């Protein structure tokens, strides 16, 4: 069985974020600390578990330049068989739909049985790229998977997914795309030797021309007008007093000041 995993390098959740003075499109400042998006590591781990069980190949792909390649090194350290970087100047300005177009073109070339992605990337939290790749391929998808069983011979997958209010079990024919929710797998901590080897690996690149994709297909459909800091919360009010007076004070504040009761 052949599995393609979509992986993305994102600013570390603990990286410092600030918004510069003019609040324009270039105002977002993010500390230079990166990691592979958590749900993509979950997806990768799930792919490796399927390989263990059914044999085959795990191919990791990312779209982007610069730090993006580190997600592929991470995938190699996890144990991916092969990695590919989609790198093209036109992709630098792309939004999620453009990225999805490039990734879908890559998947079409590879013809895997299954594509795994994260439920959402930790930076833009769009939850768009997975389903959009599936739509471009005309494949079914299942989002937010917490369990995944595949029957390669029958070309069938069974997914348990979280939905608002509970869970659902879905059946879908392969090829299909599944996005990983926390719980689908627990990402490993790769061994140092694997990390070292991945650091030295040569990473192959493909540009849009190689994918046969016109640049117009990755043109952004949205434009960032600017950024602003999140709304500031007033300084905390610590409710003083002994029990149970403090509880009464808090309840009264919630009713009369915050007006949430």
């Amino acid at each position, binding site marked *: 069985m052949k599995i393609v995993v979509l992986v993305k390098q994102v600013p570390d959740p603990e990286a410092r974020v600030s918004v510069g003075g003019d609040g324009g499109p270039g105002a*977002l400042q993010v500390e230079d600390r990166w990691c592979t998006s958590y749900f993509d590591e979950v997806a990768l781990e799930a792919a490796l578990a399927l390989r263990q069980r059914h044999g085959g190949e795990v191919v990791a792909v990312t779209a982007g330049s610069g730090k993006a390649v580190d997600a592929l090194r991470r995938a190699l350290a996890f144990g991916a068989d092969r990695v590919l970087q989609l790198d093209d100047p036109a992709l630098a300005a792309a939004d*999620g739909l453009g990225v999805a177009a490039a990734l879908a073109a890559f998947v079409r070339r590879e013809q895997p049985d299954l594509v795994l992605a994260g439920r959402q990337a930790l930076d833009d939290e769009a939850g768009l790229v997975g*389903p959009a790749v599936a739509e471009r391929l005309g494949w079914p998808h299942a*989002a937010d998977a917490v369990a995944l069983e595949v029957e390669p011979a029958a070309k069938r997958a069974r997914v348990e997914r979280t939905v608002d209010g509970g*869970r659902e*079990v879905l059946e879908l024919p392969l090829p299909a795309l599944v996005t990983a929710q*926390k719980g689908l797998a627990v990402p490993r901590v790769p061994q140092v030797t694997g990390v070292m080897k991945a650091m030295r690996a040569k990473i192959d690149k493909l540009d849009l021309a190689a994918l046969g994709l016109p640049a117009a297909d990755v043109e952004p459909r949205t434009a960032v007008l600017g950024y602003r800091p*999140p709304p500031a*919360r007033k300084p*905390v009010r610590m409710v003083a007093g002994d029990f149970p007076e403090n509880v009464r004070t808090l309840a009264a504040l919630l009713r009369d000041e915050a007006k949430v009761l």
Partner: protein
Amino acid sequence: MAGAIWVVAEPRGDAVRRVSLEALGRAAALGGETVAVLLGADAAATAPAVAPHATRVLAVEHPTLADASSTAQARVLAELARTRAPRAILAGATAWGRDLLARLAARLGAGYVPDAVELSAGADGQLEAVRPVLGGRAYARLAFRGDGPWLVALRPNAYPAPAPGAAGTVERLAAPEDLAALPPRVVERKAAAGGPVDLAEADAIVAAGRGVRGPEGFAIAEQLAAALGGAVGASRAAVDAGWRDHAAQVGKSGRTVAPRLYVALGISGAVHHRMGMDTARTVVVINQDANAPFFKHADYGLVGDLFQLAPALAEEIRKLREK
């Protein structure tokens, strides 16, 4: 300013989710025609829930449409959108709405803003949306390119549900026959372990962390949530310990919630947790450690033992609400 704004209403029992009404209210405020789109076997039956908030209701009917995959639903909507050319298509930023709009955006090649907290009229009849990025540590203001339709998933509780007005007209349409065959197929539905979790739209959320010490500790969170008429969430530590279903996890690797009131019991306030709830209106933190980082990000803080404080707070709130 041509073109209507559509809101794809999310079914919930015999009615629709509140966020669908919030989106209809916002659409109406932006001017122009507001169309509520219902998808289902007997979609028109739900029309009374949305008609007082829309100029028109489009009830698209097919025996399998309510239970159909987002693939089938997106196909039906894309066809309709191509012939009727709405200016924008909105849905609630719930699991259902986001799954559907992501597919629809790709099908239409249309600009899409997931999880918007603001939607307003820009220049020339354009729309502008604001959404949190990087876990809410910055807000991005976005415009759409091209002619639309523009797609927006609106976060629950971003706008108030509107007061009912004059009922809009209802138009029934039949969806094409071949929908049923489009996978995936739902073979089973399960309630979340530990009772239904529906944090998406909850007005109040009581979240519990490692400090509640076990699944039994969640009974205290349940009690307080019941007094507030809210739902129960959890920190990752509590979920990883197996005390609560994944579906309840709030935070970076869990879900993002934006209730009017968020009460944290025995949660230290790691950045990963806060990223899932920073846009809550009022935040109350109860922790025995006066130096817990969460206090710096709260509106009200109470230092002490949650096992003593939370039940008493539940009792007090019950009393206040009865008055």
